């Protein structure tokens, strides 16, 4: 490799330019001549400027001007989108998936699958580490927010616990309300006596308990006082329940259960959700799909198809994206899901909405992020090209109007090894030493 190799990217140059602008507040900015994908009813605005003051979008239009000293970014027609949603993930609540000491997404207080412990009050956001190595990696991919998800595991229950949206700007606390996660279907039937039917039995029992129809000191009581209070809130419609479920038959039961008890739900996964698209649209249940999950990986997904997103949307369902695989480290892969949804029949604007507005609205942060609109926080990404195409990358992201360094541990590793093997003969120190100290 060439030792004289120099790394000069647009993003780096741009960051330097921003730093050089003394005087203006860090959250002031004018982006000029962008293809602005607003993710609102306004759709896409060609050759448009976006003015940011105090971290908030103040104007969107043509020929905008900024006061002296405010940094100006020439977009030259490149796409500008809201900062993207990274799906339901464990960014910041896991580092190395295989190392238990670094993962916090699932609670298992019981001893194995036959020892169900139901703790809906479990809140994964308390484990969130804004300094996680994964946070900057996601940001480099244009990901600005994610919903921290709680997972079910043996020794816990199908009521996995709570998560919330975090903005990946280094702030420690969620920006949205808590949501409750449920695990249903094949993946979780081992947690309810090896039957899917047991899941509805258990959930009805929890409804009874949360509503006081089972006394706290009953031998059948499953909840702590905090757990009762938590479930009482979600079961009265004050809070969203996100159900991970794939099979149409289970989704049908979920719809009935949620309507019976007045529970507000969204679906994650939903491989066969397209089969119930009209019902889901009528019930206004958003579905977060993994577009690439097109195989019958189990008997809950015999109807899996790449057209799931397009079919749901065509029926009027609000469609977002989330991954079933390594959703944390590869959170940036959600863009590929959206692009492939388009390749399989979904409208481009709808696919972008699935990465921006739909998750923001569904998870209660639409007043903060998810669209480019006057009055919204300037959570923006400037792309090299069509953001739904993996052939393009994020040039620069701003969160709350602040330019985010487009660096991560991965880019540092890359830059270190781009230096090439040092010559011991020439007296050069190993790569472990900083560049320039040879």
């Amino acid at each position, binding site marked *: *490799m060439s030792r004289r190799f120099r*790394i000069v990217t647009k993003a780096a140059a741009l960051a330097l330019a921003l730093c050089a602008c003394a005087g203006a507040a860090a959250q002031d900015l004018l982006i000029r001549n962008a293809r602005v994908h607003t993710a609102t009813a306004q759709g896409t605005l060609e050759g448009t400027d976006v003015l940011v003051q105090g971290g908030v979008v103040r104007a969107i239009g043509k020929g905008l001007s900024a006061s002296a000293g405010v940094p100006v970014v020439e977009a030259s027609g490149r796409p500008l989108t809201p900062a993207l949603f990274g799906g339901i993930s464990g960014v910041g609540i896991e580092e*190395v998936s295989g190392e238990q000491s670094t993962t916090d997404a699932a609670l298992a207080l019981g001893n194995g699958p036959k020892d169900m412990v139901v703790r809906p009050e479990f809140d994964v956001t308390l484990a969130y580490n804004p300094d996680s190595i*994964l946070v900057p990696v996601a940001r480099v991919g244009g990901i600005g927010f994610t919903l921290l998800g709680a997972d079910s595991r043996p020794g816990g229950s199908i009521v996995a616990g709570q998560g919330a949206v975090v903005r990946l700007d280094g702030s420690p606390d969620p920006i949205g309300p808590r949501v409750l996660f449920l695990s249903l279907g094949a993946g979780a039937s081992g947690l309810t006596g090896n039957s899917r039917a047991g899941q509805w039995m258990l959930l009805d029992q929890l409804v009874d308990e949360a509503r006081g129809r089972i006394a706290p000191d009953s031998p059948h009581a499953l909840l702590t006082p905090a757990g009762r209070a938590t479930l009482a809130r979600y079961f009265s419609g004050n809070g969203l329940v996100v159900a991970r479920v794939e099979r149409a038959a289970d989704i049908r039961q979920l719809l009935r259960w949620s309507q019976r008890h007045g529970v507000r739900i969204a679906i994650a996964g939903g491989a066969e959700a397209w089969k119930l698209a009209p019902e889901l649209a009528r019930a206004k249940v958003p579905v977060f799909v993994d577009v690439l999950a097109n195989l019958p990986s189990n008997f809950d997904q015999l109807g899996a198809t790449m057209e799931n997103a397009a079919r749901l949307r065509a029926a009027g369902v609000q469609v977002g994206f989330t991954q079933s695989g390594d959703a944390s*480290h590869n959170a940036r892969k959600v863009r*590929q899901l959206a692009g*492939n949804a388009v*390749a399989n029949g979904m409208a481009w604007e709808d696919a972008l909405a699935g990465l921006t507005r739909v998750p923001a609205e569904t998870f209660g942060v639409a007043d903060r992020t998810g669209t480019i609109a006057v009055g919204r926080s300037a959570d923006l990404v400037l792309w090299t090209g069509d953001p739904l195409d993996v052939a393009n990358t994020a040039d620069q992201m701003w969160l709350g109007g602040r330019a985010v360094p487009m660096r991560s541990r*991965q880019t540092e590793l*890359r830059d270190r090894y781009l230096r090439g093997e040092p010559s011991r003969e020439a007296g050069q120190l190993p790569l472990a030493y900083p560049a320039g100290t040879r």
Partner: protein
Amino acid sequence: MLRPLTAALCAALLAGCASTAAKNPPPPASATPADPAREAFASTYRPIAAPPVLITNATVLVGDGRRLDGADVLMREGRIVEVGHGLAAPADAVRVDGTGKWVTPGLIDAHSHLGVYPSPGTQSHSDGNEMTSPVTAQVWAEHSVWPQDPGFGTALAGGITTLQILPGSANLVGGRGVTLKNVYANTVQDMKFPGAPHGLKMACGENPKRVYGQRGGPATRMGNLAGYRAAFIDAQAYAKKAGDKDRKRDLKLETLAGALNGDILVHIHCYRADEMAQMLDLAKEFGFRISAFHHGVEAYKIADRLAAEGVCAALWADWWGFKMEAWDGIQENIALVDRPQGSCAIVHSDSEEGIQRLNQEAAKVIAAARRVGIEIAPERAIRWLTQNPARALGILDRTGTLEPGKMADVVLWNGNPFSSYAQAEKVWIDGAHVYDRHDPSRRPVSDFLLGGVR
């Protein structure tokens, strides 16, 4: 096939050998009869008869680094006849208008578990890891392959025409891999790539020590190395008695001896750079050649050495972090491995999802490389999915590029394949039109998918 002596020489001299290896693909496997298992469970694959096909006026990526714009591709009797401009079609040829479309060789996945870990992933389908002993060189992946895996069909829709099915990575030595043509059949023998050498799956690092740590070992990386060495010492002793008529066949040692003499190509699951270096030294100690490291999340740290030793690196575009040995993954890994002269970078899947979109994985690498000023042309990147995996599997003399005389394994794309929007419109295998995105009669449906609503 490089003989052990040559391999050692290469390692000593470093430069030059790799490109020699690339230019001189191994001879057809039938010319190397040293492996007594060669004819067992032999391929019964037969190409499907088809009329000649002329694709006209397409952007053609030949697979060997060349790009021809507005070019034609002629295939006949299962072979590539010619790639060029203004080709004349035989009277009975099917003409396909390639205007605005791109043509590439059929994609090759060097690392798949389709059939051995099929969909649905039921317990009873879990046939990829013989986790009963750390060295199970005696098992053959082909004996686990379920030909009705729906994943073969979805991979075909992604342009995959050839794939190597490997045992999993639980064991130090997992067993033999098999190379298949991606055409549905009732038996795996009917899918076996005729004359392709077997692969040998080995695994470094975390997996074997995790699986066997509480079961008699190995429990450590040093235990891993001791395990490989003990196995190859046994194989050397077995190989020495090759002329002994009374020697009882030992399937385990037969496979390892086949790896030692080069009949079986060695594929090693190995993430870390330091471990790959250990395995290169292991190969040197026992005089065998490593065909490819797989996963190689840190391959970029030793890109020059891999190229100099003529070892391929079959990699993901950007997987990282799911375990400790994957912590140092970067998005430019394949691009950096690809840079040195004589390199052999491969995009592999190890995934029933990823195998459907190897082209998009490559697109991610191209995009990431561009951020640091490395421009990779499509005609170069396509080699990661075609020529280079063909080289690693020992079948480059028969497929992997669109050179005349090779198998007519061809994909017609709806545009530049390196995009989220790219789709394989038509796929030919040995000249037979086996997939068409716009014609349901040319889209395979595995037995398993019958009866459901999709």
